[in-house]
């Protein structure tokens, strides 16, 4: 310990001397003696997906999170049935399958994920892909682990804006927190959101940094997502807590801080954002007037909004959309440095006008947030010739897989 720390320690000790230690209240035992709330156990099963071309098995993961305790071992029959109902309902809601089916998998450990009050949720689970399993093969031909979730995911984009001298810009520089709601027309996948944010900010230039996709997590169960991004010389630490609240809204809390900033509390703000909409928060950086912009888009899986009829591709009456404009995802540097590879599985609705909408990340490699972000950003720019039903363009669900591999 160096001299200033020693001095500080002594001063603090002398101050502590003068403070009386608070006595415990008389009902302390009754406060602490409260038993943990009962948790409902859910189990899991075999999911078939027509689009992945095989079967997905939600298998044991030995993964543990507070409030959602996962337990190894076979679940009770009633739990399996409850889980099956949840999964069927989930699939029905998202129409990933025309007829969702759930089967028992004798050899697989079951995932037992407790769901508190907020059913239906499956929590996170490891997915094992058995590519030939649906054809009745016992042995998995291909075996791969992914993390999948029925929870909403959040697409976070990080941008650095150079402000021009107009009023919007200078007003922004003067304050720590600005919330920029984007209009309906700027929904995910509908327009170039970087340009939309540039206009909303009144920025002269805007540089898009690698973004990411994270799954829902709440502060109380320690589910804040922490990540860092390079801002020139500085590393900025970001933390996001996001969870769905009622009515198709999400509560999002963002904090950012970095050692190179004059006041460590750069940004700490809580927002509400609707499913599929985007909000952005901007905070000035202190080196040369640039502004850090973080936008959050819930890639919602809630059922509150009516998006009109969306068809499943069945190969007969509905013809699949035809991809006409494709951009390769940028391999995020962080992911490359850490040799992260794997598949990101997403589902989108391809609209009649050929744009993607309602993206849901349904599977990503463990710690694959940056890969998922890169995939989501690329897919948002893809364009299709729409699917057709009886010769007329229709909205369809489409599952997309982006495979990140390093040579």
């Amino acid at each position, binding site marked *: *310990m*160096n*001299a*200033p*720390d020693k*001095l*500080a*320690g002594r*001063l*603090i*000790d*002398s*101050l*502590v001397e*003068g*403070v*009386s*230690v*608070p006595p*415990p*209240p008389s009902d*302390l*035992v009754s*406060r*602490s*003696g*409260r*038993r*943990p*709330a009962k948790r409902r156990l859910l189990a899991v099963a075999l999911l078939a997906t027509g689009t992945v071309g095989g079967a997905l098995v939600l298998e044991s993961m030995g993964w*543990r999170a*507070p*409030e959602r305790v996962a337990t190894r071992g076979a679940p009770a029959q009633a739990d399996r049935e409850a889980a099956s109902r949840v999964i069927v309902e989930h699939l029905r809601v998202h129409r990933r399958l025309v007829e969702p089916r759930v089967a028992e998998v004798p050899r697989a450990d079951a995932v037992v994920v407790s769901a508190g009050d907020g059913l239906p949720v499956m929590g996170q689970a490891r997915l094992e892909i058995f590519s030939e399993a649906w054809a009745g093969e016992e042995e998995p031909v291909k075996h791969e682990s992914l993390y999948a979730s029925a929870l909403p995911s959040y697409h976070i984009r990080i941008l650095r804006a150079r402000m021009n001298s107009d009023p919007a810009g200078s007003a922004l520089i003067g304050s720590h927190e600005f919330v920029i709601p984007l209009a309906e027309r700027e929904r995910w996948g509908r327009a170039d959101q970087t340009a939309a944010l540039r206009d909303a900010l009144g920025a002269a230039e805007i540089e898009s940094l690698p973004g990411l996709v994270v799954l829902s997590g709440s502060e*109380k169960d*320690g589910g*804040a997502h*922490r990540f*860092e991004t390079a801002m020139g010389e500085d*590393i900025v*630490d970001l*933390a996001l807590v996001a969870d769905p609240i009622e009515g198709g809204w999400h509560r999002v809390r963002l*904090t950012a*801080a*970095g*050692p190179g*900033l*004059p*006041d*460590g*509390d750069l940004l700490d703000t809580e927002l509400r954002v609707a499913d599929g909409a985007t909000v952005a928060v901007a905070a000035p950086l202190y080196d040369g007037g640039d502004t850090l912009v973080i936008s959050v888009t819930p890639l919602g899986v809630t059922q509150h909004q009516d998006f009109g009829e969306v068809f499943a591709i069945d190969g007969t009456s509905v013809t699949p959309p035809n991809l006409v404009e494709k951009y390769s995802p940028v391999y995020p540097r962080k992911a490359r440095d850490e040799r992260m590879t794997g598949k990101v599985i997403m589902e989108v609705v391809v609209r009649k006008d050929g744009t993607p909408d309602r993206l849901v990340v349904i599977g990503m490699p463990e710690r694959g947030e940056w890969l998922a972000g890169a995939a989501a950003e690329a897919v948002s720019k893809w364009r299709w010739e729409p699917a057709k039903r009886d010769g007329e363009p229709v909205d369809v669900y489409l599952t997309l897989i982006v495979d990140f591999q390093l040579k």
Partner: protein
Amino acid sequence: LESAALLPALFAPEDSGLDQAGLVEQARRGAPGAAEALWRSQSRPLIRTAIALGVRPEDAEDVVQESLLHAFSQFDRFDSTRSPFSLWLHRILVGRCSNRRRAARRFMTAVARLAGVERRDPPIAPDQAMERREATRALEALVKDLPPRRRAVWALTQISGLSTAEVAGILGMTEATVRSHLRHAAESMRRAMEVSG
């Protein structure tokens, strides 16, 4: 020394992890005295941390009491397999201290703006002992150049003895950032000490 040895295991020092875990488990089961012993053993280290974080000594008791009450009311949420009890308490305390500091700062700024004056330090109660006043001033002079999060990093590592990994977890930053804050903190405190002589 002898009397210390005679104290029941319940009053084990807070830094002996095993005993603390045992106490926590006993408190969870509702063993008489265990919760109180935990409360008593954790109060003083928390007061120390609160002051290091920038809570005024006269407010430290309140903040620590609030944090302990909050912790005990949420006892069923505490997962001893993830972190020691004292670390969990520190996490709660840090949240409370920063809320309080932030609220106070906003309030003072708003008042100052309304009054059309620059913000000044709050007046010191006249009955406060001279020594404490001096110690507070000396401490504040030493850490005056630390922005809030850097101060928190410094307080939790250098004063409360948490590891960089633990501090990174509490403050939501990477370990690299914690180390970087520490370097900056050491530098500015050394300068502050030179200036004050």
